[in-house]
């Protein structure tokens, strides 16, 4: 279906790629959660926790989230510029290259080809492939922007540009390595410098994959699905520049109290605290958009996703900087509190916004009615409950673990052995697995709903509804 010559085939292709990798990544995640309490599940070398965890993080951050981002970007880009994609065939090539790269990435990580740098574990030949893929994407982004019909670029487009530029810089700088052979390489940086580069990358991967493009979706799809203009365009200008300026300073809050020079840690934490302001700029912008129209939380099924999503974003952006403060990092770092933090961002904010964006786009790109709003609501409640059970449990587990590591007897000796600290977490890890299962069921409902929509099962419903009306 093509109106105005817009190309929706890649939007649809990336949407279903995202769903596919989401299911794969979550299954791996569930297996990992089970391995934490049942180590016998480390059945083979490629199923062992150390290799599998990397498949989980890469599969979801890059397979799911990036595909979702590409899908929404190609949609938003055409809609906000009011022109079709500059190079539709290149975009289709992008879709194929992306899926091949992710599949090879998963296989190579299962095989243990792994640079060990978090969220940049892929070995150098795949790095080269990913850089090529990114350039192809950037050509389409800028090509389409240049021939746009709309003079001023709306907020979402700024975030898309910032992501396109920054991910390129981050990925290339962090992955500079010397190959030993086709499957093995060494970082060009040593020790503290390598750590500094890696967490500059790692934190900004969070910033420019899990934040910036998701905000682009939020700023586009919330007004579109509510038919309400965003509260303040100028507030978003201030928030945008502060966010992209501030983010790059903060990586070292992942390295507090390590041998990295202290001033870098201090600067990082100062900017982390500063970042609360632009993050909440977007939160406030979202909330105020709904002013006087909060009834849409009941009447419009999409609004729940956006408002809860941005709320989790708001919670994350306060929790993150505070857990980086020296006193608190001494207690929380290396415990389960941190995975708890990360998962509220990914399972709450990122997935909720991508879900709602897909629900909004799918009828428009297929020309078919959404299959079931009831199922969309069920999906919402399942992923909400699953996520909260998962994350809050891990926060509590983290607090307990931190306290046990720090506990001392009156004579100054340690109260608990390390293993006692592990054993104490087994009950929490069981609850976490249950939370993950509930969440997974929610995602299965989501998948079913989208597939049925694309197959046209919703059209009939709409027709019968029209007849009865």
């Amino acid at each position, binding site marked *: 279906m093509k109106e105005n010559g817009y190309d929706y085939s890649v939007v649809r292709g990336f949407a279903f790629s995202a769903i596919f990798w989401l299911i794969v990544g979550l299954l791996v995640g569930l297996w990992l959660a089970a391995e*934490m309490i049942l*180590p016998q599940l480390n059945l083979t*070398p490629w199923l*062992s*926790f*150390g*290799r599998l*965890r*990397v498949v989980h993080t890469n599969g979801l951050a890059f397979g799911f989230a990036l595909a979702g981002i590409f899908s929404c970007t190609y949609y938003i880009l055409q809609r906000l510029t009011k022109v079709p994609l500059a190079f539709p065939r290149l975009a289709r090539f992008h879709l194929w290259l992306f899926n091949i790269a992710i599949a090879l990435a998963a296989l190579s990580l299962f095989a243990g080809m*792994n*640079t*060990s*740098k978090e969220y940049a574990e892929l070995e150098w030949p795949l790095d080269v492939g990913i850089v090529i893929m990114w350039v192809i994407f950037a050509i389409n982004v*800028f090509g389409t*922007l240049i021939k746009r019909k709309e*003079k*001023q*670029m709306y907020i979402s487009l*700024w975030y898309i*540009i*910032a992501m396109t530029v*920054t991910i390129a*810089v981050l990925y290339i*700088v962090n992955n500079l390595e*010397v190959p*030993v*052979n086709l499957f*093995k390489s060494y*970082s060009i940086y*040593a*020790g*503290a*410098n*390598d*750590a*500094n*580069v*890696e967490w500059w990358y790692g934190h900004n991967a969070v910033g420019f994959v899990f934040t910036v493009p998701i905000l682009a979706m939020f700023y586009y799809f919330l007004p579109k699905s509510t038919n309400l203009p965003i509260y303040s365009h100028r507030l978003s200008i201030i928030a945008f520049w502060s966010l*992209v300026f*501030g983010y*790059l*300073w903060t990586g*070292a809050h992942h390295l507090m*109290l*390590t*041998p*990295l*020079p202290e001033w*870098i840690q201090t*600067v990082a934490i100062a900017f982390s605290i500063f970042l609360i302001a632009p993050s909440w700029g977007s939160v406030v912008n979202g909330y105020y958009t709904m002013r006087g129209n909060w009834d849409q939380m009941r009447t419009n099924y999409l609004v729940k996703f956006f408002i809860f999503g941005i709320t989790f974003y708001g919670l994350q952006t306060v929790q993150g900087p505070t857990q980086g403060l020296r006193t608190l990092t*001494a207690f929380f770092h*290396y*415990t*389960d509190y*941190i995975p708890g933090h990360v998962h509220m961002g990914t399972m709450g904010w990122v997935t909720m916004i991508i879900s709602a964006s897909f629900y909004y786009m799918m009828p428009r790109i297929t020309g078919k009615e959404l299959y079931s709003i009831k199922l969309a609501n069920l999906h919402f409640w399942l992923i909400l409950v699953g996520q909260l059970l998962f994350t809050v449990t891990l926060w509590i587990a983290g607090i307990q673990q931190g306290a046990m*590591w720090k*506990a001392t007897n009156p004579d*100054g000796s*340690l109260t608990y052995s390390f293993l006692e600290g*592990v054993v104490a977490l087994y009950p929490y890890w069981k609850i976490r697995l249950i939370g993950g299962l509930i969440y997974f069921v929610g995602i299965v409902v989501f998948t079913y709903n989208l597939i049925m929509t694309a197959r046209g099962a919703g059209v009939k419903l709409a027709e019968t509804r029209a007849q009865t009306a």
Partner: protein
Amino acid sequence: MSVYSKPITFALLSAVVILVGTFITLFIPMMLPSTQPVSDYIKPYTAIELEGRDIYIREGCNNCHTQTVRPLRTEVARYGEYSKPEEFAYDRPFLWGSRRTGPDLNRVGGKYPDSWHYKHMNDPRSMFAKSNMPAYGWLAKRKLDTKYSYRKVSILGYGYSESDVRNQIEEYRKKVTSADYPARAVRESVTPPELRSELTEMDAIIAYLQKLGRDVKALKKKEMRMVAEASPVTASKRNPFAGSKKAAEEGEKIFKKNCAVCHGEDAEGGIGPNLTDDKWRYGNSDSDLYTTISEGSPNGMPSWKGKLGNEAIWKVITFIRSQREQD
């Protein structure tokens, strides 16, 4: 026309904006040698240890184990001396990790004998019933591939020749396969017969684990030996350098660096007493002086045995004596 109407300008402006923080917190520290200092005490990995490290990376051990002990009291009590930047000069990539599902490993070297590791890697639950670490017995069933060892150490610039690498590999093979290797029994119990005279991946990863923190511990031991040697009980009571001009000159240098702050540049006194007159609070003999310097005194003189050691203390005494002779 604002920047919001010019996509290319906008992209360039964003690039500049993101590069400010990048430049200051990333590129500037990279140009400062103090960010990643190099120390003579910290030795690069041997070829075998490096192969073990690569297996550690391949298996993603860093996903559950950190390698950085933070300067916190309970952490030092649990793992040992906190991590110093110079320890990581040869780490490419770094392996500090981000989550302690298992304990920190930066000080694990020498903590347990090799036999402990063979047994533990093979089946962690045979030693700790409630451990959730995966079993890695299969590493002992895989022959270590050393085809790229020389290439690896050359890329990393460890300064070994090709024959150094061959020797390191052969020596380690001899060590673990010899009849008097202390971990022989348990190694053979986990290694299949056809690989018992070869190096396995398990051998290499254990060699690597035993290297972690070893140089720092050796340095600590050396300091303790200095302390022991410089204790008045064990030290000789007679100045081995008595009257030596050279020793006095060296002693002067040590004095200026360590003692002059309190006792004055020429030992004429300051916060601490004058050392060129005839008044001695804690005795006048060489052995009395030695005890005062090495152990310190109740009136504020610190103990120097850990900092200077036996020889330097005698040299300082030689210098002090030479000062008095001049008067």
